[in-house]
């Protein structure tokens, strides 16, 4: 009776027997095999005893109270918090993008008289393009620019005096943005060269030294940040000619705000953007 008509007994049958998952149709064959082989039966008993000993040795760990940090509720709320933080960063980044797009669109006005000429001779920009930016403009001929800027931006905006360079104030423009309006001052010299000065709330409280960029089309831009505002000075002028003007504007922009408008300046733009 050592040979069975069915498949021979294998190690897998024996382990399934130990683990209690043996197919019932194999049970009789395995039991007959073990009955005929006491040494095999003893080996299997030893293995089962080892398995039980291992289970017993490790049981304490599963019986321990679980640490609070492994509670699903805690892990879920931690995940929600980090997702919320990521969301806030995304919102802030989007606001910056919007302001940047607005500025870029606005800057087009500062690319000298050629651009203004083109605009006069060509049909106006399609409505769809000009619509998203609600620009507000004022001219020195109709308004006191200093007072007008304070009214439109809610802030004191210093107006630099550039007459020593031959530039006279011509007008101003305000671009509303979620983190605070951007202001543009437009200067023109006797030859019709347009110079624009931009000032908007800085996205971060880090000040940045002045640097120079050559814009496509021949314009030159000097930019810097005092940690509260970003500034740009742009004109179709050689670098060395624009540089002293930019330095003068930088000094002018450091002018202390008048009493009574400090409240609006005290709040940093990043705090406004992040709520």
């Amino acid at each position, binding site marked *: 009776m050592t040979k069975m008509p069915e498949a021979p007994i294998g190690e897998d049958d024996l382990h399934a027997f130990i683990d209690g998952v043996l197919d019932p149709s194999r049970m009789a064959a395995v039991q007959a095999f073990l009955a005929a082989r006491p040494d095999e039966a003893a080996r299997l008993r030893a*293995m089962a005893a080892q*398995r039980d000993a*291992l289970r017993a040795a490790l*049981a*304490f760990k*599963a019986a321990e109270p679980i*640490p609070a940090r*492994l509670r699903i509720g805690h*892990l879920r709320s931690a995940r929600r918090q980090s997702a919320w933080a990521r969301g806030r960063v995304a919102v802030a980044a989007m606001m910056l993008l919007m302001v940047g797009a607005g500025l870029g669109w606005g800057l087009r006005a500062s690319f000298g008289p050629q651009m203004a000429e083109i605009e006069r001779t060509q049909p106006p920009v399609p409505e769809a393009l000009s619509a998203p930016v609600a620009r507000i403009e004022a001219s020195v001929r109709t308004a006191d620019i200093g007072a007008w800027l304070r009214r439109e931006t809610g802030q004191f905006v210093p107006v630099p005096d550039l007459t020593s360079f031959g530039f006279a104030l011509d007008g101003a423009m305000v671009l509303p943005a979620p983190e605070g309006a951007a202001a543009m001052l437009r200067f023109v010299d006797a030859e019709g060269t347009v110079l624009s000065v931009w000032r908007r709330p800085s996205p971060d409280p880090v000040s940045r030294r002045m640097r120079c960029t050559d814009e496509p089309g021949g314009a030159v831009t000097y930019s810097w940040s005092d940690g509260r505002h970003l500034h740009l000075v742009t004109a179709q002028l050689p670098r060395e000619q624009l540089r002293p003007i930019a330095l003068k504007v930088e000094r002018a922009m450091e002018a202390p705000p008048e009493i009574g408008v400090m409240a609006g300046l005290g709040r940093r733009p990043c705090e406004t953007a992040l709520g």
Partner: protein
Amino acid sequence: MLSERDRRMEALVPALRRFAWSLTRAGDAADDLVQDCLEHALGAWHRRHLDGNLRAWLFTILYNLHISDRRRLARRARLLADPALAGEMAMEGGQDAALHCAEVLAQLDALPEDQRAVLLLIGVEGLSYDEAAQVLCVPVGTVMSRLSRGRERLRRLAEGRSAPVTALRRVI
């Protein structure tokens, strides 16, 4: 309030801690491993089939993290040749084992990693052969042969004899 799925997941935490501790033999590292595992699971929750086997899935994540952890540690140890790190890990393991038992754990340590994992998953955690194959990413046949070799080796160790494979190595 926890959802039904979250409750089922939390009910598996004690078993996950036991498996992690069996693999690492260090309480804090084991709980770090379980936390990593749960965070991965929560992050990938929506990608999982609802009718799948939650237990096997969690054990799979945990074991994969453990393997990559071990690789990372091994890389770091190799790069820095840091004997302090190795010593610290060995000591922590030794203390835990001394506190909590038993000869059988020391014998378990003598097994190769893959056999040890099979013995733990099937013998201690009660996973089926199919589930263990899923966790270890190997065919069921491989699970069976590892189970067979692991149990045989453990039995010989318990009898005070080394397994034939060790004797063979010694001869060579």
